[in-house]
């Protein structure tokens, strides 16, 4: 290594200077090639790209991120990892960590995550989601649970108090629903997908006591699922047009443009609601934990080391360093300074005074409350996307009316689930 460095230094005068400067920060060059990263668009990653030079100084190489939106990113990363495997770093999430880990498409992270970057500082819930069969596979970029986000002004005007139970919420939604004046009671997700409509449906299912599997036996085809589906369909009467086939973008978009009275959504919405760049309801928004018995949908997305593209230990170390740097305290602090609420994952950052100053004590309190009801709602298994997406299509059909028999649909899913388990043996 040293000999090669000496030769390189002899080759070019300018390089000598650069290597010398970098050398003061880190004597060894960790990376020999630029890293290829497949991700989905995140404000945090866009911000990260401004500091490419910093990473180059640290590791000796740069990085390139290809962005695809969530569903396409999932499809593409799956296709890439199972075939050519050209990405050094994959963006994975709660829905596919089991699949990626089980198929050996990603490498356990902590072996290559430098100790000084303090992995234990991450929010414990997100660490749990990133873990499969006792091994951690990704470092979180985002994550959280659910919050009930409501319009303080509308609730006050209608004399409705903040609902703490589901029954109260349903009454409030009916009372606040006033489409003639451009206000809809609630916003839900109707678009197919384990991370779309099924994601918002699961808190009802789990809240009513539903369970996906009992060992190897499907256990979801029963009263809780029927009741959850019926409640979800009933609530859809108060959801704005466009949400029946829409997902996060459509329902939060409707809320942020001032057309929705309240909704239960993933925590990053609260950050967007106070950002005047995207929100028309700044200053009118309140937060609280999801009304009981709804559970919060615990989730996390993050970066993992690709197994195929990083053939040797040195390459894995390089990818590990990139992930550690990208999720470091310093970079998280930059995101906090930029007001990127949804991009914060470290306990030390989220309990800091700057956080409270920036986002208000209300939100801090709501987050602490919701952490108590946040749960892993989905089936932690490589086959989850398969089962979840299948249910997503049936649920979309129920929502849009091409299907009406709830129990029959669940029976169909039950048969499908049995097939999945049988196929595995």
């Amino acid at each position: 290594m040293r000999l090669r460095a000496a030769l390189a230094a002899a080759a070019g005068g300018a390089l000598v200077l650069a290597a010398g400067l970098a050398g003061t920060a880190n004597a060894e060059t960790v990376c020999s090639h630029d890293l290829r990263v497949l991700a989905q668009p995140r404000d945090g990653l866009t911000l990260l790209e401004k500091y490419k030079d910093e990473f180059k100084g640290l590791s000796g190489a740069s990085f390139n991120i290809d962005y695809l939106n969530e569903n396409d990113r999932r499809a593409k990363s799956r296709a890439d990892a199972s075939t050519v495997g050209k990405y050094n770093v994959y963006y994975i999430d709660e829905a596919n960590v089991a699949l990626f880990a089980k198929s050996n498409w990603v490498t356990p992270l902590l072996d290559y995550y430098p100790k000084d970057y303090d992995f234990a500082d991450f929010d414990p819930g997100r660490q749990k989601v990133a873990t499969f069969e006792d091994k951690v596979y990704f470092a979180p970029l985002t994550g959280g649970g659910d919050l009930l986000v409501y319009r303080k002004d509308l609730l006050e005007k209608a004399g409705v108090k903040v609902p703490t139970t589901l029954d109260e919420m349903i009454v409030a939604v009916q009372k606040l629903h006033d489409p003639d004046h451009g206000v809809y009671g609630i916003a839900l997700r109707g678009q197919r997908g384990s991370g779309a409509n099924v994601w918002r449906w699961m808190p009802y299912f789990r809240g009513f006591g539903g369970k996906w599997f009992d060992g190897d036996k499907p256990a979801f085809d029963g009263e809780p699922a029927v009741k959850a589906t019926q409640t979800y369909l009933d609530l859809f009467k108060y959801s704005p047009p466009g949400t029946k086939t829409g997902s996060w973008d459509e329902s939060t978009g409707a809320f942020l443009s001032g057309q929705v009275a309240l909704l239960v959504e993933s925590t990053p919405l609260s950050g967007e609601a106070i950002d005047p760049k995207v929100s028309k309801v700044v200053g009118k928004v309140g937060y609280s934990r999801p009304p009981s018995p709804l559970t919060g949908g615990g989730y996390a997305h993050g970066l993992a080391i690709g197994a195929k593209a990083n053939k040797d230990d040195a390459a894995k170390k390089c990818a590990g360093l990139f992930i550690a740097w990208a999720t470091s305290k310093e970079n998280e602090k930059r995101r906090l300074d930029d007001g990127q609420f949804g991009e914060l994952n470290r306990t030390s950052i989220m309990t800091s005074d700057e956080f409270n100053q920036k986002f208000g004590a209300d939100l801090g309190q709501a987050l602490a409350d919701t952490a108590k009801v946040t749960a892993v709602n989905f089936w932690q298994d490589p086959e989850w996307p398969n089962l979840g997406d299948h249910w997503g299509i049936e649920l979309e059909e129920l929502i849009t009316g091409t299907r009406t028999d709830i129990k029959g649909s669940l029976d169909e899913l039950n048969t499908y689930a049995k097939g999945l388990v049988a196929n595995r043996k």
Partner: protein
Amino acid sequence: MKIRTSLPIVFTVPTMVVLAILAFVPTIDAINIALQNRELSNPDSVYVGFANFRALVDDPRFLNSVWVSIEWEILTVVATMAVAVPLAVLLFEATSPTVRNALCVLFIVPALLPRVSAAFVWRFAFHPLFGLAVYPLRLITGHPVDLLADPHTAMLAVAIVDVWQWGLLFSVVIVKLLETLPPQPLEAARLDHARTWEVYAYVALPMLRGALISLVFVKMIESLRAFDLIYVMTRGGPGITTETLDMYAFSQGFIESGRISYASSMAVLMMIATTVAFTVLWRRVRRWQEV
């Protein structure tokens, strides 16, 4: 006949070899995969004969997608021609050459737009609350209309985009064809007191029969490849009402379950079906043209 030069061979053989490799390697690979039980998440696989094809017959979603594909094919081809021909006649009959040329340029623009961009633009245009295209409907009915979420209108809404791109382009092609026709037969018909529509229906358009049939074929092939449009606008939804065969195959292969072999068997079936259908149609049409 004696071949005096080796040039034809020199020029055609390398091209044919390249084409053969490009066409056959993926095809054979697809057939090979279709006979196995490969899944993305599992590197091991064995040959299972025609099991995938047998499973397709019992798969209601597959049967639905076959039907949706046929519906889509008929709807878009008929609608494109139904828009293109009258529009071309109107342009030819009612506008001065300068106006006509300006309009032609305008009509080509939608087809120049990449499909995915067109799909995104229209998806916003169909948005029930903010969409420009559905605003008149909202005024008439008094409440927001969500065309893409309604199983009865979703396919129609996507087809409108397809016709917007291709119907307008084809009308330009047909106008240009009309301009190339000799004026004498049309004048003769007019002297015989034929009405305007009769001049076109019985004289001008029959003279363009061959060209129009070619256009229909081009559109049929083009309609088979509507994946990008449907993927962006509805993802096959609501439910499975706009899920065409290629959409379902992609879904099985890459979105939902990673069942590559199952998806391949669909692709193989689709290839066989289209080859047979097009061969039969082509023969029919040629016989009809010779009459």
